[in-house]
């Protein structure tokens, strides 16, 4: 029997033609360390080789954009001398392998992307999706991910002020864990990921380098998932929020003192990335000495040192004259530091280990010459049939029972079980925290507030990725408008299946188009994002699940921002926005009552969207309650107001399809009679607050019963 040994490049996940490109670039066979570097840098996760040519579709420009896509985080100008930095990142595959540490290190990674820019991180948002909670495995994953985010976020000292929770069987073998971070900085503190000019010194800060997570993010996140994934377990990384907290404070002190030329975090692809990217960006070369790297384990090889994804490390580029001071700051904060390299003229990245040159490559080639694929695309053939089948509620539907079932759904019910495990109050900025439509953080010393909403909806995007993608943006915009903010910039996290399947590529490109069109219509630039492919298990892809994070600026912050717990006996209930159609395609009612996924979601209307967003933003300064209509439609939106305000309501409308419709651009407003006069063509009165029950046409739901269902939706499942 002959045993065939896979060539090294294939073991590292590289195709034969990618290997040939390396040979062509170098004009020779790569050395082992060089091959290691190309393999991680050219992985799907780091190179965006399947997605890059499509991401160019995003609109990225606006007068307030300071840094667009391409750096570690996007940066926008919010006035008064302040900038905001934002980015979103996924940790889907690591979180399936080890939910607690996978989620924790995801938080650590996104924080580094933001404080790399010179910003102090002030808020985190998590978007997490799992299979149904009646399966023990999913409860384990959900509980582990939430405790991982809590452990890391709380201890690192950055509040988690919002997010999203979803459940669907398509995520059972592949949960989604996305995290967004927002930071603020003074204009003159902006730092970029550049290596600077020849003579600049590279200082590695923070954790020691170990074998943990060798090729972790890049390999795990760049291939399909199957039972072999168990074998990849040694690549699990353990987060150390304490080290990261010290690293944040040390870096911020370096920025305030003006001691760095550039900074790059060490995330996926570790040292390979943190040397080649900054050098490539600056158009310089670099000499690196791996023997200077502080290590956790003895006898590490050069490829291991270059591929390790050990957490909580940063690379600072420093003028030679400032090195002493930089090391002192590191000492003060009790973090390790090591001078590991120096920038050289030219474009060659030379890496030495034990006195020998182990790599000598054009620095920019790792990023710039990465393969670029135009993968085939095909519209799923069954889509016409799916669109032709409108979901219809049964004529004998028990409306009250259906509303209670929706409120008891863990994706709709109260998120308190999750967000009360997160410190969401640190820094005294949280004016509107988790559990509301969007979050609102004040910017101290100004009248401004930063509003953020994150939104994803795999079901809508499965039915129509273009309309779905666009509707996410409009929904996020409405969510920041209800707290008085104007949409300003967007980051996106594109969670998709296997890009080698033409249907998945089609979904991807359609979603990008939908998000782009909506952003263009609102004048919102995309300033950064992330792509996560290969979210499939045993050949079955997840629903296409792009997630958007929208930053809005409230200027000024409303004196009393609308909240859903401020409805009072006798107030009027209005619906603002277009009259809904009876379409239930992709809605929560379709999922919970019918258990199907069919029909074509209603198209968004950019003109109406702009009108409603503008109107709502003004109302946010005067109206006590504003709540956007989303999951569960009008019925759930009003029930949530009643539950939070501990009061009943009467709605004349009794048609379940209209009450459960999730058609876009709609908001519920509650206010005293005559307090405001919303324009009649876009707003209509639909009911009155009062009593102890919610009455929808002929159906009556006791608020105490509704409250129970809503509050217990997650806890009763997690403690069963």
């Amino acid at each position: 029997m002959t045993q065939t040994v896979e060539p090294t490049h294939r073991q590292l996940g590289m195709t034969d033609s990618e290997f040939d490109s390396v040979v062509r670039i170098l004009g020779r066979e790569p050395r082992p360390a060089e091959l290691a570097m190309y393999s991680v840098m050219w992985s799907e996760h780091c190179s965006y080789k399947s997605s890059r040519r499509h991401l160019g579709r995003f609109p990225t420009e606006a007068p307030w954009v300071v840094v667009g896509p391409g750096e570690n985080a996007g940066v926008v100008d919010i006035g008064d001398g302040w900038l905001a930095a934002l980015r979103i990142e996924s940790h889907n595959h690591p979180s399936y392998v080890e939910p607690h540490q996978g989620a924790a290190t995801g938080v650590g990674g996104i924080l580094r992307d933001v404080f790399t820019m010179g910003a102090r991180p002030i808020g985190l948002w998590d978007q997490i999706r799992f299979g149904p909670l009646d399966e023990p495995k999913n409860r384990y994953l959900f509980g582990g991910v939430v405790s991982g985010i809590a452990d890391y976020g709380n201890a690192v000292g950055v509040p988690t002020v919002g997010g999203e929770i979803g459940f669907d069987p398509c995520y059972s073998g592949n949960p989604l864990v996305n995290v967004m971070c927002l930071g603020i900085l003074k204009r003159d503190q902006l730092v970029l990921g550049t290596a600077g000019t020849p003579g600049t010194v590279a200082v590695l800060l923070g954790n020691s380098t170990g074998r943990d997570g060798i090729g972790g993010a890049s390999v795990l996140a760049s291939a399909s998932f199957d039972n072999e994934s168990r074998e990849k377990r040694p690549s699990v990384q353990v987060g150390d929020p304490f080290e990261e907290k010290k690293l944040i404070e040390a870096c911020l002190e370096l920025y305030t003192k003006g001691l760095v030329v550039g900074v790059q975090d060490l995330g996926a692809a570790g040292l390979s990335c943190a040397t080649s990217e900054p050098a490539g960006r600056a158009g310089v070369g670099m000499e690196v000495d791996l023997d200077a790297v502080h290590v956790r384990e003895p006898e590490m090889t050069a490829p291991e040192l270059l591929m390790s994804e050990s957490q909580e490390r940063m690379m600072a580029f420093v003028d030679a004259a400032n090195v002493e001071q930089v090391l002192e700051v590191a000492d003060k904060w009790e973090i390790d530091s090591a001078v590991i390299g120096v920038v050289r003229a030219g474009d060659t990245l030379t890496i030495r280990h034990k006195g020998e040159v182990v790599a000598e490559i054009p620095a920019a080639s790792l990023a710039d010459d990465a393969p670029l694929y135009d993968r085939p695309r095909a519209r799923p053939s069954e889509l016409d049939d799916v669109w032709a089948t409108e979901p219809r509620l049964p004529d004998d539907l028990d409306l009250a029972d259906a509303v209670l079932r929706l409120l008891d759904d863990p994706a709709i019910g109260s998120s308190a079980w999750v967000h009360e495990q997160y410190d969401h109050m640190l820094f005294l900025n949280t004016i509107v925290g988790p559990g509301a439509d969007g979050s609102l953080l004040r910017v101290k010393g100004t009248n401004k507030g930063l509003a953020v909403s994150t939104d994803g909806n795999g079901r809508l995007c499965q039915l129509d990725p273009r309309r779905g993608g666009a509707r996410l943006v409009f929904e996020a915009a409405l969510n920041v408008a209800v707290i008085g903010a104007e949409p300003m910039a967007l980051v996106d996290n594109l969670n998709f299946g296997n890009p080698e399947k033409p249907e998945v590529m089609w979904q991807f490109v359609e979603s990008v188009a939908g998000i782009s069109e909506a952003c263009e219509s609102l004048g919102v630039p995309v300033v950064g994002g992330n792509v996560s492919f290969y979210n499939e298990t045993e050949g079955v892809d997840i629903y296409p699940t792009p997630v958007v994070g929208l930053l809005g600026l409230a200027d000024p912050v409303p004196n009393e921002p609308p909240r859903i717990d401020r409805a009072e006996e006798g107030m009027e209930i209005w619906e603002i926005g277009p009259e809904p159609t009876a379409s239930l395609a992709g809605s929560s009612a379709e999922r919970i009552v019918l258990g199907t996924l069919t029909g074509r979601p209603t198209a968004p209307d950019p003109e109406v969207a702009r009108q409603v967003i503008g109107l709502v933003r003004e109302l946010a300064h005067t109206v006590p309650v504003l709540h956007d209509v989303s999951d569960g439609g009008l019925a759930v939106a009003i029930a949530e107001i009643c539950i939070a305000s501990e009061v009943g309501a009467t709605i004349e409308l009794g048609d379940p399809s209209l009450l459960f419709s999730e058609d876009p651009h709609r908001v519920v407003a509650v206010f005293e009679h005559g307090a405001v006069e919303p324009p009649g063509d876009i707003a209509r009165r639909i009911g009155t607050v009062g009593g102890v029950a919610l009455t929808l046409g002929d159906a009556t739901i006791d608020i105490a019963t509704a409250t129970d269902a809503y509050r217990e939706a997650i806890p009763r499942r997690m403690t069963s």
Partner: protein
Amino acid sequence: MRTAVVQFPGTNCEHDVVEAVTALGGSAELVWHRDTDLSDFDGAILPGGFAHGDYLRTGAIARFSPVMTEVFRLADSGAPVLGICNGFQILCEAGLLPGALIANRDLAFICRLVEVEVADTDTVLTRTATVGQRIRIPLNSYEGNWVDPTRRGRVVLRYVDDPNGSQQQAAAVANDRGNVVGVMPHPERAIHDFLGSSDGNLLLEGFLHSLAPA
């Protein structure tokens, strides 16, 4: 009258405490845990966070920081010393307060506004409050469950609804003299109505009043 706000590696509420004290007209300054001279200060606050990552046990490593010698001296002299959340845990580990803090009954981190009732007004935290008075301040801890096998501790604030299993529903505890107090919920997080409550000011005012020689 100056308050030292002690910053350990891993502390994260220090700036919030400075802001809260300053907003009330007090004067607060950060001191690093390696500082060894607090002679310019009239009192100290050990703020919340995760000193040394909460590794080993919460507060266990922090209590050995060089600055603690000065905290002991202040406590000894009768000056007001307040530990908030992680600071409370450190004061227990240091033996300046009785008992210890263990994991919450339900083994989950709890961050939410809670209601507490004033049980004792003869302390630097509650001297401007009245017994039985109820106030709302945010809890934010995993190890907030106070146990005291000696049953000697003076309970200063009690939770109205027991969130974490704390003995005698204690939310704040004092030493015999009443000048060293540990409080698990965060008064500095309840200083503006737009943050959900401004009841924390009552407690911080008590502390500031105590800085003046009696």
